[in-house]
């Protein structure tokens, strides 16, 4: 295989990868239930503390 032919293959592979990323096949699907993810958020916490813990584990920092 020549470098030129490999380059075409690489571009196709990259596009497949981007599509995989877009469609979410690269990761396990999100759970639809509202169950808490992390043990620290379970049972012992009061509802306010649970929401605070959820906020800590969230998402994108501003």
């Amino acid at each position, binding site marked *: 295989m020549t470098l030129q032919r490999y380059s075409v293959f690489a571009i196709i592979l990259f596009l497949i990868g981007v599509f995989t990323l877009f469609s979410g096949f690269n990761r396990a699907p999100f*759970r639809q239930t509202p169950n*808490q993810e992390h043990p620290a958020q379970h049972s012992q916490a009061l509802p306010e503390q649970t929401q605070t813990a959820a906020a800590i584990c969230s998402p994108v920092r501003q």
Partner: protein
Amino acid sequence: MNQYKILSWTALLISLVLLILPRIVPICTGLAGGVQPMQCHYAYQAEFIVTLLAVILSGSLFVLTTSEARLLNGLVILLLGGIILILPQPWAIGICPEAGACHKTTFFITIGGGLLTLTGALLIWLNSRKSRGEIQ
């Protein structure tokens, strides 16, 4: 099989394992507040792109012929391995602060990223020796 081929296959295998790792050892599947993905989702989306690039570059090791090109490729693979190690750090994108599924995934990806970095370094060393004419 010569040393270069062994390193090329090693880089390709490590990259492929890293690419599919989040499917085998999944990260957190919950949503923060039931609405938005957590930090680890974004970190591993970025990891996917980086490992995809590592796969492509590792594959190109089999078609490159000159020592200079192979050396440069090894350098980029080394840097990509470094990026794989950096992304889950809290000062980069980060993962969940509490213990969770993403910590387990990060453990394995850290090992893989380290091995990929080492493979890149060995590729650089091997091809710098070749380009200096020390070995054939």
